[in-house]
């Protein structure tokens, strides 16, 4: 049996795939830390072996009592610490930069669910446990979880981010090497956790354009959202209503919204998601709570993403998502927007309703 394994050992390179712009710099740091660690390990092993041999007990005990040395102590505290500061600074720098997706990133929506990854593209095509991306284009994933915590991980890209139920998480990468790479869930999520895997296909742009044109039989994401919008009867209120029962959603995306408790929030993805699932959570000034039914349990996270895409398409300043994910979609300043809304929400002692 072992013999049959040997070819696999030979075949499996012990160097992990690097398939994104991020992978190179992270690996550089990885090997720097590994190198320093290796040197340290060798130094310590060698000293132990050397001392153990040189000062091994012979016939009679002969030990020289030495109290210690402050100079030595300081040296071997401060020097390693300085080296560790380099590791810290380097790692923090890469990490900080990696938080901020480029404005021209292509947006893809991912929903984690026990035990599958559901992927939705702006053009409306969907797949499960597979993600197709063109080489060289930054890709931003907006991720939601239907149930428990999952973690989206593509080792070849050196990226990983938990998907926490209750809000959107995001992660981005720029694939730079065509191929087929593992996609793993790396936060334990139940029985078939090990089955929550898939593949990321990095394709040449032309190849990708071909692939993309084949998908999306049900229209774009926004069109799917529009269908849902009609199906749930949202339109009667949120687009056509003249009686002022509920806010008109045209042009609302990413605009500030005045709430009835005096706060102002930005109508970004996170806000829209909350308002669909729990309409009473934040009431727009001048409207009554309890008018809109709860959609929690009625719609999936995927539906929510479709609805948001549609609402987004109703805003002139942010045109509807374009056909073909190959073309970058407009930026989604949701981070900044959320920050603005949060900054308001976080102020203690703000006027309290009622």
């Amino acid at each position, binding site marked *: 049996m072992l013999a049959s394994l040997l070819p696999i050992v030979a075949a499996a390179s012990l160097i992990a795939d690097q398939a994104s712009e991020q992978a190179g710099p992270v690996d550089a740091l990885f090997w720097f830390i590994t190198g320093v660690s290796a040197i340290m390990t060798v130094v310590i092993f060698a000293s132990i072996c050397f001392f153990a041999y040189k000062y091994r007990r012979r016939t009679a005990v002969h030990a020289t009592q030495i109290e210690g040395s402050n100079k030595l102590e300081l040296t071997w505290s401060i020097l390693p610490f300085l080296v560790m500061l380099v590791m810290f600074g380097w790692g923090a720098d890469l990490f900080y930069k990696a938080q901020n997706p480029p404005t021209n990133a292509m947006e893809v929506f991912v929903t984690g669910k026990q035990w599958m990854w559901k992927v939705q593209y702006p053009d409306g095509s969907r797949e499960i446990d597979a993600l197709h991306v063109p080489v060289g284009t930054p890709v931003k994933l907006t991720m939601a979880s239907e149930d428990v915590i999952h973690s989206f991980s593509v080792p070849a890209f050196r990226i990983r981010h938990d998907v926490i139920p209750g809000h959107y998480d995001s992660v981005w990468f720029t694939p730079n090497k065509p191929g087929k790479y593992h996609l793993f869930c790396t936060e334990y999520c139940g029985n078939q956790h090990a089955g929550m895997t898939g593949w990321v296909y990095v394709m040449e742009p032309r190849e990708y354009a071909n692939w993309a044109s084949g998908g999306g039989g049900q229209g774009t994401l926004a069109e799917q959202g529009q269908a849902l919008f009609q199906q749930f009867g949202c339109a009667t209120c949120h687009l056509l209503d003249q009686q002022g029962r509920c806010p008109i959603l045209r042009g609302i995306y990413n605009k500030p919204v005045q709430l009835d408790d005096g706060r102002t929030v930005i109508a970004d993805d996170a806000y829209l998601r909350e308002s669909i699932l729990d309409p009473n*959570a934040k009431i727009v000034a001048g409207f009554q709570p309890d008018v809109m039914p709860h959609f929690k349990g009625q719609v999936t996270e995927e539906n929510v993403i479709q609805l948001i895409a549609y609402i987004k398409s109703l805003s002139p300043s942010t045109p509807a998502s374009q056909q073909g994910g190959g073309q970058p979609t407009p930026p989604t300043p949701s981070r900044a927007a959320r920050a603005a809304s949060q900054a308001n929400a976080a102020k*203690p002692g703000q006027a*309290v309703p009622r």
Partner: protein
Amino acid sequence: MADTVVPAGPETAVEDIRLKHHFATSAQQMDADTLGMWTFLITEVLFFGGMFTAYVMYRNMYLGAFASTSQYMNVVLGGTNTAVLICSSLTMALAVRAAQLSNRRHQILFLILTMIFGTAFLVIKGFEYHAKWVEHLVPGFGFQYEPAQYAHHAQILFFLYFAMTGMHALHMVVGLGLLTYLVVQAYRRVFSANYFVPVEMIGLYWHFVDIVWIFLFPLLYLIGHRR
């Protein structure tokens, strides 16, 4: 300070029958007991601290919802309970003092008073819990809340309310058990100016439970209590 310093116990405290075998002197034993009790109280601080941390985070996130819950909090009962606990702390302190002065009658009297206040607290708390149950404010058991916009987040506060006050009440029950033990021991003339450490230690515990409530009262009852 103006307090009396009494050298209690003779130099030959070692002879004391209550001195456990592994201690050299009564002073050592008392020091150890005191330090042990305070160490235990630190664990209690962090035990409640976990819930206080959760409270601080959610209050920050959902201030509106948290503030709106105060309309369901009975400030009169909460305030009364605060006063009752403070009274029980006073009687507890007096009981310890009586023990230190070898005044058995006062000691028993104050211990029993403390127990009465403690029981009163629990009874009042029971009425509050009952009211919450009737108003469907127990999370997970048919929770209903007005205003509806805060229904979800108010559940978090009520969950914390029951967890924190429930944990506090449980500590009170344990405290009452310990007080009962003290009364019995005091009745048997166990305590005197030479030996009162158990009274003092249980006193520390009782005061600590009081301190927890001192924070719970404003945080849970007075959050948004202003119209």
